[in-house]
């Protein structure tokens, strides 16, 4: 009898174990939008991997298992769905935006790591993170400025107007930092450089449209310096166009 019983048990075990279980979705990739918990999770992983350099790769396009996580991380819908939703309170959105800015900052450093040939290890990823950051900062500063007006006793006072202007100049300053990445153009590969150049063109144009009265003198100077350093045709042509636009903007404001 025991022979039959054990045969039956083996059959049962084999069948049940054959069912298996789905792989654990560490990054919650099925989620339509990532929230703060998901960013906390991936930033934690990025920092851990970064701290153990040489053993693992950061989430990137080259690693099939982590590619979807990287794509999800730089999906602008993750912040837009919160920051553009005016049903949500301004204080809530401002808090979310501040955290998101922290996440963005935490992304940049690990992904700008260089290899022994002074090339970016993650060129495409870095370019996409920089573009993500530029897109995000429009919403971030807009909400920040709305919040300044909301908490001020006199939203129309000179003090508030000056603070908002100063914030816009800070935003332009942040974009200047992005523009400074042109000096590392040789560290990018052709694909990444294309992505980054398109981003610069798109977001600096958007900057001038959204803040037409801001002071772009420093940005113009920076763009000219970068043009002198630029060697690749894609970057040279992008900068030439931007310099033309910035120059026209600076001159129109001076009048």
């Amino acid at each position, binding site marked *: *009898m025991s*022979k*039959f*019983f054990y*045969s*039956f048990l083996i*059959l049962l075990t084999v*069948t049940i174990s054959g069912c298996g*279980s*789905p792989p654990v*979705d560490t990054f*919650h*990739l*099925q*989620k*339509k*939008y990532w*929230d703060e918990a998901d960013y906390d999770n991936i930033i934690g992983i990025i920092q851990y991997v970064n701290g153990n350099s040489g053993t693992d790769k950061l989430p990137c396009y080259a690693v099939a298992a982590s590619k979807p996580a990287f794509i999800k991380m730089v999906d602008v819908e993750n912040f837009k*769905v919160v920051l553009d*939703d*005016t*049903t*949500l309170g301004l204080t809530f959105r401002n808090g979310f935006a501040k955290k998101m800015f922290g996440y963005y900052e935490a992304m940049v450093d690990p992904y700008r790591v260089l290899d022994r040939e002074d090339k970016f290890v993650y060129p495409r990823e870095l370019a996409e993170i920089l573009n993500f950051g530029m897109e995000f900062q429009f919403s971030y500063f807009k909400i920040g400025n709305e919040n300044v007006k909301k908490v001020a006793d006199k939203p129309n006072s000179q003090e508030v107007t000056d603070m908002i202007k100063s914030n816009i100049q800070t935003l332009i300053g942040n974009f200047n930092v992005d523009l400074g990445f042109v000096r590392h153009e040789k560290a990018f590969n052709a694909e990444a450089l294309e992505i980054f150049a398109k981003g610069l063109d798109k977001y600096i144009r958007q900057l001038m449209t959204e803040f037409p009265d801001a002071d772009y003198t420093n940005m113009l100077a920076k763009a000219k310096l970068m043009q002198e350093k630029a060697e690749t045709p894609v970057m040279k042509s992008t900068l030439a166009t931007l310099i033309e636009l910035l120059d026209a903007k600076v001159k129109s404001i001076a009048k």
Partner: protein
Amino acid sequence: MEPYFFILLFFGAIYLLGIILVVVTAGKNLPPLRRISITLRINLVIFLLGCAMTSVAILFDFNYLNYESPIPYSNWKQIRFTDFRGLKRPGQSLDGMNEFAFIVGEMQVTRNDKAITATTYFFPSRSYVYNSNLENDYLLAHELNHLHITEYCARLFRKEIKAASKSVPDDTIEIIKTRFRKYDDSLQFAYDDQTYHSYVLGKQKAWERTIDSCLKSLSEYENPVITNR
């Protein structure tokens, strides 16, 4: 048909084949009576195991251990998360998240000589929340709006039945009911997709306003009882 049925059928067939294989190959030198006895014993074990597994499987669909009878839509304001008594299936998650809720609401149609009754019910023992002591008005509002959508479809059903010029035969009622159930399913899907289970608050509020106005526009069909002509 429920997918569980096919799973059950599939594994049932595998087990049956397995038993036949074991008894035929391993017991070929045994006397016939001994073989029958072994087969019966194995069958008994499988039967008992099957009963136990079926009971557990049903439990995850409908928590009979913590039962509360269905609540009609007219009492929807009394529904709280403490009424969500169902269990989630092992491994079940919402896009990888474990903190979620789901509500089960359904229109049930009955008929007698004088009237057809189409009532929307909330099923406490089939609805689930990860923490029944949860005080989350946003999530509760989201779940209740699922019930409002079902009630909206029920009112559409009542309107169509009432508009019929003569008594509606049972098979026609079934066809109309199926049509509105499918419509309900499509609305529920769109609602969850657009609001992302209440995460997108702007969309959530928009859906609440829309369904509320839809219900108001059909307020004359609020009564579940439709009198036969």
